């Protein structure tokens, strides 16, 4: 024994280790679980009612159950500032707020009437909020969208960030994160794009759907909310009129200086993304094609996209040249022709079809550029392209039109030359 004690004293680190073990083990055993002190916030909503902020926290509460279902609830707090509102929400929750797992931040559309950056200042200062947090806007209150998202999780296993993540991967082809917003906000043109989700009543939704089906114009509306089963629909609390659904129409809000300047639909977003090689799978409809004395319309899907972009100054004016090489695939034929043929002659894009696709693409692009020009919001990074490749001439031109402050108006002066080459995929 004596020998062992002697050995022990010869190794002071062992003593330190034993002391630490003796000291921390009871703490570890008797301290309550982290979930009892901290609420895991998975989504955050900010509303402004009059001059007061309301913060809603979609909180995940870990509880033991056998169904593997996540139990989430929305907890709110009000205050004169975001920090105060979160503090009050913490009191209501009985736990401190842990934002490390917050994947979504939703703001009410009204907040975008003023500089939204001032409303989310707290979030950018709280470093525990991840930079890749999805940042979206909604037409109703952020609280409502978080309430509705609970149904998404419980019924479809679909999370809010996955709904908007689809847009980020397939529609905007840009991150709609808090970081992406700030990147645009702090850029010289001070413009950015954020996702837009709407909430609609079940009843209104059904009426609209029937109108849409009547008019045979399906559009791109995509309902993400789940349908309640018959049991729940019999419940008075879940009456059809009261049910709220999150509707993802693929829209986005164009912001300038943190304020909303335009609400863009899918068509306009496709126009903005037309030169983005990652933005594919869009459908182009070609109407009025004559085939065997019949008029039919064809639906083509963009399968591949290559873009070649160059910028230069000609006679002191900026010229933006873009060549777009599209690989398209025929996916649908609408018309009297009903016989199904695979590898028909339509797989070869005729000159007439190519011309019509080109015209359609150019129209889409021009419309989007016009919107950006009207809003002085260069989300395409046109100014950046010229700064990067023609810096001297760009700076000279900026000085001519009003200096550094005029960088937002630069897009107004740019002459766009778009050349579209359509190839069968």
């Amino acid at each position, binding site marked *: 024994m004596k020998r062992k004690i002697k050995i022990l004293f010869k190794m*002071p*680190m062992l003593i*330190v280790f034993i002391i*630490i073990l003796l000291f921390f083990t009871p703490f570890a055993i008797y301290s309550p679980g982290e979930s009892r002190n*901290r609420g895991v916030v998975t989504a955050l909503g900010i509303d402004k009612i009059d001059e007061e902020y309301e913060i809603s926290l979609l909180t995940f509460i870990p509880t033991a159950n056998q169904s593997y279902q996540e139990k989430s609830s929305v907890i709110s707090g009000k205050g004169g500032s975001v920090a105060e509102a979160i503090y009050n929400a913490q009191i209501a929750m009985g736990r*401190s707020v*842990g934002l*490390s*797992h917050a*994947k979504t931040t939703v703001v009410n559309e009204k907040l975008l009437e003023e500089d939204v950056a001032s409303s989310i200042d707290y979030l*950018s200062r709280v*470093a*525990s909020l*991840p*930079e*890749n*947090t*999805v940042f979206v806007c909604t037409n109703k209150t952020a609280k409502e969208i978080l309430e509705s998202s609970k149904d998404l999780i419980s019924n479809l296993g679909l999370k809010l*960030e*996955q709904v908007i*993540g689809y847009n*980020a*991967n397939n529609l905007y082809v840009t*991150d*709609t*994160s808090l*970081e992406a917003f*700030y*990147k645009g906000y*702090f*850029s010289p043109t001070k413009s950015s794009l954020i996702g837009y989700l709407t909430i609609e009543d079940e009843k209104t939704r059904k009426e609209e759907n029937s109108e849409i089906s009547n008019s045979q114009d399906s559009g791109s509306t995509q309902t993400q909310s789940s349908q309640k089963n018959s049991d729940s629909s019999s419940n008075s609390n879940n009456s059809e009129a009261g049910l709220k659904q999150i509707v993802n129409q693929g829209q986005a809000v164009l912001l300038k200086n943190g304020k909303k300047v335009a609400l863009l639909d899918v068509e306009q977003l496709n126009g903005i993304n037309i030169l983005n090689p990652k933005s594919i799978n869009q459908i182009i409809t070609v109407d009025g094609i004559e085939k065997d004395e019949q008029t039919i319309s064809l639906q083509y899907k963009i399968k591949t996209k290559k873009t070649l972009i160059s910028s230069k100054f000609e006679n002191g004016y900026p010229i933006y040249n873009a060549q777009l090489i599209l690989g398209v695939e025929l996916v649908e034929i609408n018309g009297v022709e009903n016989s199904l043929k695979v590898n028909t002659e339509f797989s070869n894009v005729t000159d007439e079809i190519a011309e019509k696709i080109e015209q359609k693409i150019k129209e889409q692009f021009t419309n989007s550029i016009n919107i950006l020009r009207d809003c002085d919001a260069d989300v395409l990074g046109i100014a950046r392209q010229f*700064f*990067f490749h023609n810096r001297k001439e760009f700076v000279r031109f900026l000085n001519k039109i009003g200096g550094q402050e005029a960088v937002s108006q630069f897009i107004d002066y740019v002459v766009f030359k778009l050349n579209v080459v359509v190839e069968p995929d």
Partner: protein
Amino acid sequence: MKKISIRQCGVIIVMCIFANKILLMPSLMYQQTSADSIFVLLTLFLLDFAMLPIFIKLKENYPNKKLYDILRDKLGKVVTKIIYFAMLCFFFFKCLLVFSVTYVYFKQQIYQDEFIFLALIAFLPVINHATISGIRAFSRTIELFFGVVIAGFVVCLAISLFTPISTPYFFVSSAKDFFLSLYNHVFAFGDFIILFLIMDRIEIKKGQTKKLFFFALFAIILVVSLFYLFYAKYQITAFMHNNALADLLVFSVQFNAIGRLDIIAMLTIMFITLFQMEIFSYAFCDCFVNIFPLLNKNYSVVIFDILFCILYYVFIGRYETMVTSALYWLPYLAIAINYILPIILLVILIIRRQKIEKKDKNFI
């Protein structure tokens, strides 16, 4: 005396090169000089790299002599003690800065609340043990974990390549900003000074010096890559992100679904910080023992702990104070240690060479 191999010396250098550069510095630099910070970084690395041939020459001329003995012989006891005191402060503040930045990082990412008590209990005994065990023991530990640390670092850089990056804007800051940034961030450099301090404990065999250059160059390339990727990814918002290595992992919505991917960065940073603190604490204790030869290493460790705790609470405890000090007044100390000391050693070498040449001439 047991010596460390050139490889162990190399891994120590790599850890020193990572010190104070992989978390906060990229964003601090960006505020001053935007993406041109990469040029500031390269300039400071170039200045540091110039110290390596001086060290090698010194080692060739004095293979088994301590730096303290060389300085005492040439400059006298008092001047040497003053230099050693400056070095003691230099390494102590470097250690405090490393701890301070990492502590704030972990507080933000994991604990949310203050956990200084836990952090001190977790770090100080290990650091003390490493210091008492000696350079050979902890350099072997670093050597053992070196692969893991580098793999973690490289993974952080590699994952960032899966998200869109674009070339940052260069040549946008003025010459004044450039030189001011050089001055403000010089304290985070001077990574080769540790080599001078432990020169008597390094065993360099013939033809092995190029290994030292290789390790140094390898670490520099990793740090420069980190800066470049960080600026390429964040660009205009780089100033908002205080934890460069970890922030590279949490950028994209695409990675949102993969839980907390930054755990890779956390583990890497934890190991790097621990090793850096061990190195700086050892350097502090070595300086202390040379200044006060009557007190042994155990006293120096106790003094280090007391000073560390007192300064952390009383003066440096506020993160902002520590960072501001590192940017504004500690650079004076850094310039003296990073550049003036090696120049003094270079002069010593030149004088010695002239004397030898004179002797040779007289002999002929």
